[in-house]
């Protein structure tokens, strides 16, 4: 084909990334549907960040403890979790706030992950606090011989918060540089406020320069560009044990959250549509294969959604459980 897209990644890898992007997209669309059908109280998530977050999740060194990567994530990170092997049904469980939700037992909103076995620290609704807690795992991993790194992500508007500056300062202290990969997924909005009205800096990543922190700005809608940029940044942080600031321009394909309607936004680039057109033109996948894949996940998650509806809600008498580690029941 004349204008066929040329990829650098192997077809096998492209297919893997595509599969993950479809899986994430369909999962988020299922979560949105659950919200709209009254099977959840609120939706916020990651459609539009798949081309960046999928390749990110695939390159995480997954495990528990200092020799593995710590993740301090925001609420648009479902592709990262799926790439790491999270079960989609568990996202449905959190959406439905059933007792079987492994991330919070029905206590937190959907896409607020936590998985100690994988070093995924609790996702908090508080914008930007993750850039403060990242400092701590970064310090722990600055220890000699440590192989893991700390990865933190968040949106563009949140970078106005103090913790973002804290992370830049603490990670570049001359006495103890920290192995932290700071990521900003820039969708140009904070809820309804355009970034351009609040930020005088040309690029968020420019803030790294003052601290001598390496940086890159990339098209987060392009999975291949994302893959290599993430690889370079991770390699740097892993071997140099120094911070890196990576800014990825992404889309926000269903608006901010259910509070703004959670409807498809047609005028932003859809990374999955672009990628699929490229895959088709390069002959990596056919349109039918891609449609079938989407339908497969659709059917799977629909069934899982039905199952989740049968699962028990947490009981009101459990509210005192786990205020303290290992404690159950009313303790005072």
């Amino acid at each position: 084909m004349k204008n066929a897209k040329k990829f650098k990644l192997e077809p096998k890898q492209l297919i893997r990334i595509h599969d993950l992007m479809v899986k994430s997209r369909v999962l988020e669309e299922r979560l949105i549907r659950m919200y709209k059908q009254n099977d959840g109280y609120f939706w916020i998530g990651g459609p539009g960040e798949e081309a960046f977050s999928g390749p990110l999740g695939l390159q995480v060194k997954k495990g528990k403890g200092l020799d593995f990567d710590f993740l301090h994530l925001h609420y648009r990170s479902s592709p990262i979790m799926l790439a790491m092997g999270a079960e989609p049904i568990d996202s449905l469980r959190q959406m439905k706030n059933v007792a079987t939700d492994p991330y919070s037992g029905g206590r937190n909103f959907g896409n607020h992950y936590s998985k100690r076995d994988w070093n995924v620290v609790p996702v908090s609704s508080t914008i930007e606090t993750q850039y403060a807690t990242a400092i701590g795992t970064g310090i722990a991993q600055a220890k000699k011989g440590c192989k893991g790194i700390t990865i933190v992500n968040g949106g563009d508007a949140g970078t106005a918060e103090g913790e973002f500056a804290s992370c830049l300062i603490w990670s570049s202290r001359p006495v103890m540089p920290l192995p932290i990969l700071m990521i900003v997924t820039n969708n140009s909005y904070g809820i309804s406020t355009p970034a351009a009205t609040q930020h005088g800096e040309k690029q968020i990543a420019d803030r790294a320069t003052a601290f001598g922190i390496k940086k890159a700005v990339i098209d987060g809608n392009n999975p291949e560009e994302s893959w290599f940029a993430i690889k370079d940044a991770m390699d740097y942080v892993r071997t140099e044990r120094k911070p890196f600031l990576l800014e990825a321009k992404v889309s926000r394909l269903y608006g901010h959250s259910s509070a703004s309607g959670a409807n498809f936004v047609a005028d932003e680039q859809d990374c999955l549509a672009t990628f699929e057109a490229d895959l088709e033109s390069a002959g990596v996948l056919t349109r039918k294969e891609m449609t079938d894949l989407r339908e497969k996940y659709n059917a799977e998650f629909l069934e899982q959604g039905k199952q989740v509806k049968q699962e028990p809600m947490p009981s009101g008498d459990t509210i005192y459980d786990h205020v303290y580690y290992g404690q159950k029941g009313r303790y005072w």
Partner: protein
Amino acid sequence: MASMAQAIRMALAYGEQNLGIEHIFGEDVGPPLGGVFTVTQGLTKTWNAPLDERGIVGAALGLAYANVRCVAEIQFCDYIYNTIDLLKLAGMSCWATNGDWPVPMTIMTPVGAGIRGSIYHSHSFDATATHIPGFKIVMPSNALDAYGLMLACLKENNPTFYLKPKALLRVEGEEPIPGEPPLTPEGRKQLKAMIDAPLGDRSKWKPQWPALTDYTVEIGKGKIVREGSHVTVVTYGRHVLIARDVADKLRDEGILVEVIDMRTLWPYDWEMISASIRKTKRVIFVNEDTEVSNFGEHLLRRAVDELFYELHARPKLLAGAFVPGIGLSDNLEIASVPQFSDIEKACRDLISELA
């Protein structure tokens, strides 16, 4: 005869050597200063943090997530208020994840008035701290408890607030810390020579720690400092000493005041407090934080809820005036926080009330 500051320092030394404490940090915590109250002098795991309280609390929480034990200091509690959402996050992490994450971290910070610290070195933090579920909160009133409560915090798998009553940091203890030289003027000099950093160049100085041993004050256990049968005073921190002096004065007149040092603010020793109230039928809660939405109000509410028909007089709260800060001038500070005379008067008033 260790001071409270020396006691905390020794506890931290014990923690470094025996309890796996890997980081002790905060503003001016590391060398050369070793803390504005000398609490972290001579330790090996100390370092100076950027002047960034939010970063300090975030770092402590991140270290706890990494299961690396740490103590982080906020130089004065007056400057902790910009970290509240991170503190809430620390208190919430285990609960919000349905029990997935232990959070072994200690935040220590000097609190309270009593040293003419003016507006921004006199705040209390107990009312705010007790509004943050998930933490365990301690405040010692003497050197030995300061040592034992710190060890308890360092062993915890939950976030702890270690509130240091700043007016007591230089007060010497009356009971020995296991391992410290004898409680004599000689012993005091000896200890000072062993663990206090010299003035001037300290770069080559190393402390010589006494043979410290494990002495832990269990979190959640109060202490009856004076036994009495006429009225109970429940307090903590520097007001324990004041209440004790009041009790000693009134004893001569035949008024027997029971003084309870809570030691742990949360989760607190209700068993001890309620047993004492049942005995004396009269209770005064004393602390120096501002009186509106004060922690003592909670204790008072519980006393009313559970013990109303056993009380012989109105339960009372003595607390700080609800004003934005503590004024510097003697008269202003005295008028702002409970004094000896206030506690004495409250005891007399309560006892004179008809049953």
